[in-house]
């Protein structure tokens, strides 16, 4: 069983993790909190900060795992998808380290890794299962047949659901990051107070662009009648918007589970921290008789532990790459 160092740098988090015999021994994330003041993922800070963080983050991951570099059996990195400048930092570092240590190199698809985050801790999902991966940049329904055999069966045609949360917050004048604030205000609001038209999309695909526009019109219209509308009804607006977004997500998830006759269901990605989504998923699971899997929060957001987990399976399958590998911003799933 291998000892692997994994590096993640696809977006704004620099992270390194060590996995030993399939057990994650360390997972160090340098979260660029400096981004918050600029209203989001700031690439300039991202690529520059990745360069500043990568050496200390890797050293710390090895130290916490009490692992010497010479003990490593392979080096893994996120090849894509992501921002090229950010991917290059982690990819180049991993390649150089692999070359220097004369160890094999493993490339990992960031979105595969989100799904495989479910195998870091017990209880693990049984195959086949359906994973709903929800984040700021992605909304995907994935049919998972085996650790290295998965297919997208539905995805967003425009905005990701995390973006819908963040942009709704922006329309309400809430500070960044807006998604978690919507969740927070929604706790005390009435989810049925307002209704927003849902865009019907074919099959298992999602669309969140229309609801963003409908939400904008709604807020503009109400504010015209009453300039204090947002402040007076903030909790109800947030609860209603969250309820609508969650309903869209779970509607498609239920359809997928019924069509495929699968009752093993998982969620992954940063938005799976949303309390409204978790509660609604639990309720739905009870009605549908599903077994539901939600990774610990630290494995939902971007992290290298999930890259390490994916790399572990690729190592066992003998899937290595050469030094001629390049980061790929639009890596196919």
């Amino acid at each position, binding site marked *: 069983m291998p000892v692997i160092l994994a590096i993640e740098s696809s*977006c704004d988090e620099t992270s390194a993790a060590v996995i030993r015999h399939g057990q994650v021994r360390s997972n160090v994330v340098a979260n660029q909190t400096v981004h918050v003041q*600029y*209203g*989001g*993922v*700031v*690439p*300039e*800070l*991202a*690529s*520059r900060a990745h360069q500043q963080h990568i050496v200390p983050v890797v050293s710390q991951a090895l130290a916490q795992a009490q692992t010497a570099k010479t003990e490593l059996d392979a080096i893994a990195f996120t090849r894509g*998808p*992501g*921002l*090229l*400048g950010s991917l290059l930092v982690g990819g180049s570092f991993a390649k150089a380290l692999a070359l220097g240590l004369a160890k094999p190199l493993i490339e990992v698809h960031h979105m595969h890794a989100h799904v495989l985050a479910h195998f870091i801790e017990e209880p693990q999902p049984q195959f086949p299962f359906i994973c709903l991966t929800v*984040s*700021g*940049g992605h909304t995907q329904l994935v049919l998972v047949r085996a650790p290295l055999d998965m297919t997208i069966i539905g*995805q*967003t*045609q*425009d*905005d*990701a659901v*995390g*973006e819908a949360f*963040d*942009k709704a917050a*922006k*329309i309400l004048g809430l500070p960044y990051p807006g998604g978690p604030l919507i969740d927070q205000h929604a706790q005390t609001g009435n989810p049925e107070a307002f209704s927003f038209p849902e865009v019907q999309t074919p099959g298992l695909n999602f669309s969140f*662009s229309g609801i*963003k*526009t409908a939400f*904008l*019109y709604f807020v503009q219209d109400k504010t015209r009648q009453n300039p204090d509308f947002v402040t007076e009804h903030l909790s109800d607006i947030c609860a209603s918007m969250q309820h609508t977004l969650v309903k869209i997500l779970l509607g498609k998830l239920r359809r997928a589970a019924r069509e495929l006759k699968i009752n093993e269901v998982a969620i992954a990605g940063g938005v799976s921290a949303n309390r409204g989504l978790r509660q609604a998923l639990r309720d739905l699971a009870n009605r549908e008789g599903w077994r539901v899997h939600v990774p610990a929060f630290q494995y939902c957001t971007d992290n290298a532990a999930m890259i390490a987990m994916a790399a572990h399976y690729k190592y066992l399958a003998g899937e290595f790459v050469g030094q001629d590998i390049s980061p790929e*911003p*639009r890596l196919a799933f």
Partner: protein
Amino acid sequence: MELICENLAQLPAIARQVRNFAGPLRVWLMEGQLGAGKTALAQAVCRDLGVTDPVSSPTFAIVNQYATAQGQPVYHLDCYRLKNEAEALDIGVEEYLYSGHYCLIEWASRIQALWPPAYLAIDIALGPGQERRLNLTRHD
């Protein structure tokens, strides 16, 4: 030139008209408030170029890259989260702007100092209901 798009169904035809108007211009700067339809227009243009990849909002990723039917790259950028030009330079925005390939940029006003000499400016205004008014200006 002004184009009026009354509803989503007209968008594919509008996208073709914008392409015809743009001629050889490859850098398109799209302005318009949240919900104006910048991403929707980019989607329609990509479809018109034969892109079969899902075209989604680049707000989170900053740059989305697709491929046309002929395998040519199409860059879809979003400067919404950028604070200034220096940040754009650091992600290598010039690599995209001067690539000679289509470069569809949302919230381009954030990087005004980096605009190339030749570009197509597209201002999208929200009309009543689904209606959108597209104001197109060529800068050759």
